[in-house]
């Protein structure tokens, strides 16, 4: 097999793996390779993507055992020789082939109180936000999450503990906790200090290491650990 052909091994839900010969190009993402297989070699291959530009967060897969956003991962960065292995995201139920069920990921997002807790109505004036305040800077650090679940798939604590809310959901909780417009402080701290909460985190840091948007869920979770601990020491909220 020459270098102008890639050996692309794809893990299939029917069991086993299939290796495809895919023509190599100068500019080719992992998603391009998967799409080529589906369009030219095996139309039964299931996978998920939408925007192709790193905004929608739907195309994450395991690439050589590492979770990555496939639309923004150049194939040359991950090739081992001329081979690559692509599988469905870890820590989530497989629907078919490379498409996983994202429900547990989003259910935990909500379970961590990753929802807006508003106190104002549409008739109230829009609250002024000081963009330079420390809390706002902290909140801003986490708002570019695209829900791709790369951090969730990277987390060994999630693998070992089904109840663990995971890096993305906890980072969202931390963002809302620091958001002056969110009134859910008590609900959030309750949600993140439970059985599956922030204190499960072992600070292994794979979430932060692999986040495609360079976010830092590990530090966000450390913030939640501090806040929940402070709350306990204050005895009551």
């Amino acid at each position, binding site marked *: 097999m020459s270098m102008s052909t890639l050996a692309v091994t794809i893990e299939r839900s029917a069991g086993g793996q299939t290796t495809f010969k895919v023509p190599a190009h100068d500019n080719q993402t992992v998603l391009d390779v998967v799409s080529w297989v589906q369009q030219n070699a095996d139309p039964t291959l299931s996978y998920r993507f939408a925007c192709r530009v790193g905004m929608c967060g739907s195309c994450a897969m395991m690439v*050589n*055992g590492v979770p990555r956003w496939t639309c923004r991962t150049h194939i040359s960065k991950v090739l081992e020789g001329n081979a690559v292995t692509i599988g469905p995201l870890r820590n989530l139920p497989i629907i078919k082939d490379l498409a996983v069920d994202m429900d547990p990921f989003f259910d935990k997002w909500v379970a961590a109180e990753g929802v807006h807790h508003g106190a104002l109505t549409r008739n109230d004036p829009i609250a002024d936000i000081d963009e330079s305040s420390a809390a706002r800077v902290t909140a801003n650090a986490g708002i570019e999450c695209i829900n791709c679940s790369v951090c969730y798939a990277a987390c060994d604590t999630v693998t070992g503990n089904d109840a663990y809310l995971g890096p993305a959901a906890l980072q969202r909780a931390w963002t809302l906790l620091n958001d002056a417009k969110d009134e859910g402080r008590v609900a959030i701290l309750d949600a993140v200090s439970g059985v599956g909460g922030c204190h499960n985190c072992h*600070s292994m840091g794979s979430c932060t*290491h692999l986040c495609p948007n360079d976010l830092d869920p590990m530090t966000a979770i*450390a*913030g939640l650990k501090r806040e929940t601990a402070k709350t306990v020491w204050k005895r009551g909220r």
Partner: protein
Amino acid sequence: MKAVINRAHPLWLAHVLHRLSGLALALFLPLHFWVLSLALTDPARLDGFLALTDQTVVKLAEYGLVFLLAVHMFGGLRVMAMEFLPWTAPQKTLAAMASALSFLIATLFFLQAL
């Protein structure tokens, strides 16, 4: 092995080192206390055991033990600093360097005293 290579970034390696050193120390400590207890129950046997510690192999093992203790202690301090001090990354690097340096100096002093 591939699973390790896939995760081999400093924070993960620090976590694994901390966890493995903890396990190794947990295995060592019962043995350690048992040997200490010989001072009360069977002094002659303790003396026999202490004679063993003059061997190079045992000295090397002791070096490993000190390494485990050091790595576990600083691993624990690292986790506490990382999680409970809202510091920035450069500050943490400086703190880690300061701890490592002070540990080095203390060890050198200790070796000199022997």
